[in-house]
């Protein structure tokens, strides 16, 4: 034959985009009904650059190698009672937050990328989204399998599916993904692939996985390493999709900018859960929230947005407020969970003196001035056997669904709240960022299943706190108490051979920080 042989790139093209065809028996808009709904203009899908060229045979080969290794380590971990090697049973609470709050998001990502992989009309984008979809299924399943062993020995992990759908603070991560998935395919992929995976993943995934490494959790850190190459692929997809949309038509720029603004702020609010995990829940700290935000958002994110400036894209709106808030975010969040521990499926505690010193050194502007006195007060109450707890129901932000406890960016003594009026009703939001998001799509956000409103409307089991907690299926007295009163703590002492009889109740954590 005289024709020229195909190069690698052309060969890959034969394996993917050449598989599709221009339909003639059914109209394109019926096969891909979501293409135009978001107002985005795509002129040429052939301009899509495949961010990674992976055929299925290679995919199976690489992924199976990783799975074999991972499961071998999980098995060995279980066999050797590896859970006893973590720094301290307080660490398990980070896993509780992860399994109840984050793993279900991996499932949501699996379904969301399946939808994008079916609805985006270019094969290159379809294949990338479908691969990510099945990767995300991998992540939720391997996380469940990894944490399954911990679930056999610790409380607060065994009902993560029910809790994710029902418990108040888990509506924060849940509504985040519900929001992205109920949008169109382009907004979804901007929200998750770009704003979340590309800009913020180092602030979600990294702290949990590094936290595992620092705290002797071999099983979870192995999962983390195993998922790293998947994450790298997902991040390249995030950047490609942004550049593709921006290069296709100048009219796309303001739409994409608004999505970036929205999803940056949504993501930042979601990360408040991570901030308290980093600063308070890890017995052995990796870095402070403030250091992480400076490194991964201010520096790395700043460089990224400089690079995107040539497309007419600027830094996400209100990013300055996140910098102003760095000194307060984790402390205010932890305070809320500590005072509402009775309604949470994990344990809280007050930091030890050495941890207070660490916090003071990481937050010289704020910790000793605003938070240490409060913590010392709580500790005193604990010592008197009168643990402080707040039985009232907080007002929630209509957008991010976090209780309205954040303070104004320029004044840590004033609670920040904003009000919008829509069709004669008032809606409250926690910040300028959340208010903007509400005001742009009020019809969407008035639908929010706000946990506190739902309780008051009688949709959560009854009128008393106890009935609501039963409806949450919180194992009361076991899952929802302060750490020093918990079964996790007494079991830990038993398993580690630290005689519980000789431990007095008011000095419970002499065993920690090993």
């Amino acid at each position, binding site marked *: 034959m005289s024709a020229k042989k*195909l190069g690698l790139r052309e060969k890959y093209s034969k394996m993917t985009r050449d598989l599709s065809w221009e339909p003639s028996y059914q109209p394109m808009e019926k096969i891909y009904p979501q293409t135009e709904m978001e107002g985005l203009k795509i002129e040429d899908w052939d301009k899509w650059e495949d961010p990674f060229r992976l055929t299925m045979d290679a995919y199976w080969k690489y992924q199976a190698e990783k799975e074999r290794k991972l499961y071998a380590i999980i098995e060995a971990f279980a066999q050797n009672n590896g859970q006893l090697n973590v720094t301290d049973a307080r660490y398990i609470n980070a896993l509780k937050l992860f399994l109840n709050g984050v793993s279900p998001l991996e499932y949501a990502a699996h379904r969301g990328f399946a939808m994008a992989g079916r609805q985006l009309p270019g094969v290159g984008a379809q294949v990338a989204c479908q691969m990510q979809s099945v990767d995300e299924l991998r992540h939720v399943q391997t996380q469940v399998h990894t944490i399954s062993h911990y679930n056999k020995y610790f409380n607060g992990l065994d009902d993560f*599916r029910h809790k994710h759908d029902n418990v108040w603070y888990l509506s924060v991560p*849940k509504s985040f993904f519900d929001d992205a998935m109920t949008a169109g395919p382009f907004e979804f992929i901007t929200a998750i692939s770009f704003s979340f995976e590309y800009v913020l993943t180092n602030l979600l995934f990294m702290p949990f996985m590094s936290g595992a490494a620092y705290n002797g959790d071999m099983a979870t850190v192995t999962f983390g390493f195993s998922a790293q190459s998947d994450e790298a692929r997902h991040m390249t997809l995030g950047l490609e999709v942004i550049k593709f949309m921006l290069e296709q038509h100048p009219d796309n720029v303001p739409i994409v900018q608004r999505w970036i603004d929205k999803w940056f702020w949504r993501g930042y609010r979601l990360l408040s859960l991570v901030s308290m995990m980093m600063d308070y829940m890890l017995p052995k700290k990796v870095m402070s929230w403030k250091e992480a935000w400076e490194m991964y958002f201010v520096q790395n994110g700043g460089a990224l947005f400089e690079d995107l400036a040539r497309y007419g894209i600027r830094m996400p709106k209100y990013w300055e407020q996140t910098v102003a808030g760095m000194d307060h975010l984790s402390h205010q969040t932890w305070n809320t969970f500590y005072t509402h521990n009775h309604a949470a499926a994990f344990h809280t505690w007050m930091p030890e003196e050495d941890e207070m010193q660490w916090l003071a050194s990481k937050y010289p502007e704020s910790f000793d001035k605003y938070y240490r006195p409060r913590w010392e007060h709580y500790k005193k109450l604990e010592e008197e056997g009168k643990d402080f707890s707040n039985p009232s129901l907080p007002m929630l932000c209509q957008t991010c669904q976090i209780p309205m406890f954040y303070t104004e960016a320029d004044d840590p003594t004033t609670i920040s709240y904003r009000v919008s009026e829509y069709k004669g009703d008032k809606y409250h939001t926690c910040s300028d960022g959340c208010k903007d998001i509400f005001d742009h799509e009020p019809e969407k956000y008035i639908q929010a299943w706000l946990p506190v409103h739902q309780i008051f409307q009688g949709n959560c089991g009854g009128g008393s706190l106890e009935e609501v907690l039963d409806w949450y*299926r919180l194992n009361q007295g076991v899952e929802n108490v302060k750490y020093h009163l918990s079964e996790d703590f007494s079991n830990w002492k038993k398993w580690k051979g630290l005689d519980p009889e000789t431990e007095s109740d008011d000095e419970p954590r002499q065993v920690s920080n090993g």
Partner: protein
Amino acid sequence: MQIDIKTADVTPLRQTFKHVQERIGDNKPASRYQEATIALQPEANFHYRPYWDSANELYDKNRTAIVMEDWYAFRDPRQFYYGSWTIARAKQQDSTERNFSFVEQRDLLSLMSDEWRQVVADVLLPLRHVEYGANLNNYYVTSYGYGAAITQLTAFAGMDRLGIAQYLSRIGLILDGNTGELLNQAKEDWLQAERWQSLRRLMEDLLVVEDWFELLVAQTLVLDGLLYPLVYERMDKAVSENGGSSLAMLTEFMSEWFGESKRWVDATLKTAAQESEANREQLQSWINHWLPKVEAALLPVAERVFESEAEDVLEELKTELSVRLKKKCTLELS
């Protein structure tokens, strides 16, 4: 910190997660498949109606006419979750790779007569577009279906179909010495040649089916249930008898895949059919609706291989499918 685990008394507090325990019974250890599957999909308190389907919730049982008391009544007989699926495929991929290099190194496809090489190129290569359509259809089910027990299977199957489309493309590249000319011709045929138009119309019609369970039945039971035996059993056999036995080495993945995949398809249909008379009637009516269309679409393709015997071959395949349906799914073929 060193710990002496010999002295540590570590009795588990529980065997598995609540949503798993509720379905498998108290104090039973759960399998990896069960923990990775049962109740994994969100079920309640969705926040916003989708912009793309404001009549339904984000996850909604009403996107199909099939009604189930429990969407986790479905069980995959292969017990696939991501890990077991990808490890199974990697093994098959490994032997497929060896088969491809064996055939390529010895140039075994050249042993076929030109006439039969042409048959293979004419029939096999346009099917990569069918595989791509099947990929999208499976992903439609994963997107809008209800319950992880089914939707994860179509995610795996969707990726499998992309893999098969890629294996078919490689066969085309072996046949034409890596120029892509045969694949271009095959695409031209798919778009224009009379032989392929009813099948292409069928694929495009499937791409707009709204009820995800109907699509599952039409694609994975009716279409695949006739197409795979036609191509990867009957045609492979005919090609083998005509000097092309090496082709079977290149399509081994496909025939193995079908033998394995029909097990979950059968189990899924059987569970749905046994749930209620209404489900059974609905499934039956979908089968009756799609079967004649599939038959008509496959006939011209079969004729390219079996000429005047094509109708008889399809009749036999229909009988086999009917036996399979009755035995494995408790359903009938009209």
